[in-house]
């Protein structure tokens, strides 16, 4: 095993472990990157819990995660199921669904910034077709976060592709056997399809949560955390602490709290899923 994982292992030690440990050390210090770090004990951590912006960022991030991750997963799975059937123009639909995912990062943020423009943007224009008067999305504290959630659904195509790959891996023989046994569509879905794609589902759930805990680009390019801190994402908070206020120590403490929370989430999901996730190899749990 060590032969195979050695490249990763070396990389892990140099590019991850060493920086992690350094940042753990920094989290107990007052450090502006230029002057040498000064040890301050737990001061950064205690400050965090009395800091309104910290709690604001926690709330924003959790709200975003708990809405966008499940909705995105359901959308992706739904489309994958639809497109796994024999349907006319299937290839076109698959490509069309995935297309938006090819625009991401800066380009996507710029495009949607333009689309969400309340006076000349596309979004409110489309809403007006249905007689809805759209809000001033990114400029309103109430709707800015919702706008970013809507935008996140636009890239459900990535998840769809992964689900499709998983669905293609469901052996036709199993489905046939279930059919012969008189199982209906829903039954087959529940008892054959879902267990067979459960590794893909687990993977996406975990990655989705980890990714959305780390939302940054959108907040940075589109809203700068505003208006009125309504999109003040955790990592944006962390970033401003380090690079706007030059408080690398406090920022490192934020990073460590984030790491612990994410690990907790992942651990719980993994533990819970062990009973349900099915690997065909059988050798693994």
């Amino acid at each position, binding site marked *: 095993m060590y032969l195979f994982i050695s490249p*990763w292992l070396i990389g892990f030690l140099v590019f991850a472990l060493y920086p992690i440990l350094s940042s753990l050390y920094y989290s107990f210090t007052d450090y502006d990157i230029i002057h040498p770090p000064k040890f301050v004990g737990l001061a950064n951590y205690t400050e965090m819990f009395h800091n309104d912006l910290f709690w604001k960022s926690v709330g924003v991030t959790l709200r975003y995660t708990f809405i966008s991750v499940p909705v995105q997963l359901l959308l992706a799975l739904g489309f994958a199921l639809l497109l796994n059937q024999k349907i006319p123009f299937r290839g076109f639909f698959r490509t069309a669904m995935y297309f938006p995912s090819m625009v991401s990062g800066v380009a996507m943020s710029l495009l949607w910034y333009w689309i969400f423009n309340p006076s000349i943007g596309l979004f409110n224009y489309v809403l007006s077709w249905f007689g809805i008067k759209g809000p001033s999305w990114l400029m309103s504290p109430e709707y800015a976060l919702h706008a970013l959630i809507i935008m996140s659904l636009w890239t459900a195509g990535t998840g769809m592709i992964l689900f499709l790959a998983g669905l293609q891996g469901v052996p036709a023989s199993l489905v046939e056997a279930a059919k012969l046994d008189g199982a209906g569509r829903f039954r087959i879905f529940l008892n054959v399809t879902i267990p067979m794609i459960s590794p893909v589902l687990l993977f996406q759930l975990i990655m989705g949560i980890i990714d959305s805990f780390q939302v940054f680009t959108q907040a940075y390019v589109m809203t700068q955390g505003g208006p009125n801190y309504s999109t003040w994402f955790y990592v944006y908070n962390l970033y401003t602490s380090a690079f706007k206020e030059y408080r690398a120590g406090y920022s490192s403490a934020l990073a460590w709290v984030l790491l612990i929370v994410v690990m907790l989430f992942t651990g719980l999901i993994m533990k819970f899923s062990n009973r349900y996730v099915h690997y065909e190899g059988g050798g693994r749990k």
Partner: protein
Amino acid sequence: MSTIPAAGPTASPSLKKPRRKLDAVSIVSFITLIVTTFLMLLPLFFMVSTSLKSKKELLKFPPTFLPESWQWSNYKEIFETLNFGQMYGNSLLIGVLTVVGTLISSSLAAYGFARYRGKGSNMWFMLMLSTMMLPYPAIMIPQFILFSKLNWLDTFLPLIVPSFFGSAYNIFLLRQFFATLPEELFDAGRIDGCTELRMWRQIALPLSGPALATVAIFAFIYSWNDLLTPVLYLSSSDKFTLPVGMSSFTSSRFRIPPWHLLMVASVLAMLPIVTLFAIAQKRFVEGIVLTGIK
């Protein structure tokens, strides 16, 4: 699975396959697909059409769907406004090298994690997962100091070299796929006297085409879209990558962001990814049906 019936779901029952009540389900799925696909593609359409509009037309409401006058010169202008060609090349070079590094190192590590349950393998796996959870900003500062000590500032090295040491995301993805390969294949290989390295190369890899294609595409897209790392490490403008260049569009240099040019840049930024997807699409979705059980 490659042949799609020529007739739509509403067509009269063909002779070969008598259609049953399934049709209702198919029609509903079909309509759902059309509506959502339309909504998904609308922003993209808007992006392309905006890229061809004149500056004046940008400010019209309701927005025009097709440009009143097609400003193809926008596409010329962007190469003159910014060092666009150079940035494009830089991003491509970094992207391709990242893919090569990721494929080799990640599939090796994934194989190791999928096939062995030795002492401590679980611990290493959990450690690897935990690196995925580490927000990049958290390790940014120590990493920056490390790379500056290596004299790698303002080179592409900090953007490429780490990929040759595997990335947790891709290792996890490949490991999930490798774990679904039937154990019998590897037993057979072992009996035939295959070394582990050969089993990785000749059994695991060939059976994982779609997974590898997925990883390759993700690695490329990630590198292609990354903004934070190149912003940190690249300082001279001839080394800029595309996202860095594009974000400079909105900088104070322009009082009002030139949206038409930004959309041109976005369209051009999409091109390599679209091409890659067009090439790999087959592998991407054909799945792992032929995992060798047959």
